[in-house]
């Protein structure tokens, strides 16, 4: 047993879900066979937590500020792990949870939902609704290799609390920086962005404030990386 533990040099990773839809969990689970060699994953879909401390905690879903129990749990997860990763838009920027306003039975008091970086320090954020399984595969590869250049964007957005299609329009289209590559259109999970005359047009009622377009845009992501946090 002792020997086995020494041999297992894989990253110990804990997945925890808060107020989310579980779509991100499925993404992580789908990546499982591909990351199995480098990552020792504890995900509630497969079984119980097996360790006291973890190298990385992958957090999905936003946090309900009216639910003290989950806030405590989130802080506890932060303490248990060396690196905290917000995976998916609800955890990173709030996403669809930014539209919550409470008032629904049986718990009308639960109204305030925030991205996890409102409560704890997050090291990396990976937005998307949900991010593809490939994102988690690449992320762990970069982390394992210590590839800071590739991790830079994830690190910078970890300090950002909200991003949406509106920010993309403001910072890239309005300023004339857009090169019309169409990355935003391809990345938008709701089809809220359509290129018209080679410039993105935002269908406002479809934007769920997930921020994926902003992070995928080559110009916007450079701006945010240069500006830092």
């Amino acid at each position: 047993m002792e020997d086995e533990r020494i041999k297992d040099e894989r990253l110990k990773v804990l997945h925890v879900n808060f107020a989310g839809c579980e779509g991100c969990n499925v993404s992580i689970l789908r990546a499982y066979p591909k990351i199995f060699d480098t990552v020792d994953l504890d995900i509630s879909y497969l079984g119980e937590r097996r360790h006291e401390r973890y190298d990385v905690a992958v957090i999905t879903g936003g946090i309900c500020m009216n639910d003290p129990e989950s806030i405590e749990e989130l802080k506890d997860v932060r303490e248990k792990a060396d690196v905290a990763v917000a995976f998916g838009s609800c955890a990173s920027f709030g996403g669809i949870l930014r539209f919550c306003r409470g008032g629904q039975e049986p718990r009308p008091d639960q109204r305030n939902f925030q991205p996890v970086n409102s409560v704890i320090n997050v090291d990396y954020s990976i937005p998307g609704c949900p991010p593809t399984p490939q994102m988690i595969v690449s992320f762990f590869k970069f982390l394992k290799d210590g590839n800071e250049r590739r991790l830079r964007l994830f690190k910078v957005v970890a300090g950002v609390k909200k991003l949406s299609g509106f920010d993309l329009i403001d910072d890239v289209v309005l300023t004339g920086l857009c090169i019309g590559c169409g990355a935003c259109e391809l990345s938008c999970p709701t089809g809220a962005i359509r290129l018209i005359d080679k410039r993105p047009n935002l269908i406002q009622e479809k934007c769920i404030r997930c921020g994926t377009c902003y992070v995928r845009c080559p110009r916007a992501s450079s701006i945010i990386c240069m500006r830092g946090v």
Partner: protein
Amino acid sequence: MRTAVINKVCRIAGDAKLFLYEEDGEVKRASFIATAPVRGFEKMIVGKNPLFAVEAVMRICGLCHASHGIAASEAIENAIGTVPPRNGLLLREALGLINRIQSHLLQFLMFAGDLIVEQKRKPLILKLIDLHADVSGYLLKLGGAATHPPNLTVGGILKAPKESTIDRLRNNFSSLAGKWKEVEALLTDEDIQTDVAEELRIHKATYSFLATGLFYGDVYNLLPDGIELVPYYDFRKGEEARLSTTRVAFYMGKTVETGPRARMSVYRRFKCESLYGIHSARVEDVKLALLRLKEILDWLKPSEPFRTKRIMFGPGRGVGVYEAPRGTLVHFVELGEEGRVVSSKIVVPTMFNIPIMEEAAVGLSVRAAEAAMRLYDPCIPCTTHVVEGERDGG
């Protein structure tokens, strides 16, 4: 009486606790307490454009996304008096079926811990994940994404798939069916199953069933006014019930089971009175969904429209009924003067199933009772730890 508290059984997008009151190794009473925060989608979409409503409700659940999208679209179409063209309806049904298969595969993965002996579990899990990826590929091509398909919208399908795409999917179908055959053989092989599976096979439990269709769901097979919703803490009084953040649903004043076993019992000659029957019914459900998916791929006509051209949002009320992976899903919607959502109500299958699950646990051992919860697939059952404590009287 001893109480076994399972502090973390996950359910729809979050957590649940399970309280089992047991005597002589037999569960006498069970309370399934969902504790995930209420994100309030019904209130979130009030005042919004119906197109946003469809995108938003798909994000209620990352496991049955398309089902919510379909039920909401149906409700809105019902309210404004329109129907999608034939292609739109067929493709919508296909998206729903792919979603059903995705969701059931995940349930099998979750349930493998109870069903299959440990040595044989891992290959099955890897096979299930592999098959899930293949099935998700179909949703990506037809729906626009592997989760929360954005092509699903009011009036049909936003973006018609290319003929070459449909052809490719049709050609890949035999590989998909082959992989399913392998998985199916493992899922139904009684030689590699655990004692818990055996206990579930012996334990008889049948209830009234609610199902509105085999594949799609039909509003005419349901009396929407017959659905009654009660907050859980009013349904089961007591200390632990106050923790619950869910409501439970009754149909025509009765508790009803909904889901694969209900569908198979109402629409097929399926009879299995034991709890294990739910598992068999789910396997059957996937098998039929695959057959039907193939049929739909053959019927699609890429040259014809996939979406109704004229969509005008205006005042009205509508009901959308869809057979989600876990059972009958009902969306009610009311649109106001400008066509914006005035009110909405969503009844999810787990609301019907919670009282049934609690009843089903009675008479089982603690381990099997826990497995029975997962069998009903209350969105995602995941138990992390069992805390045992003493309780006098009960």
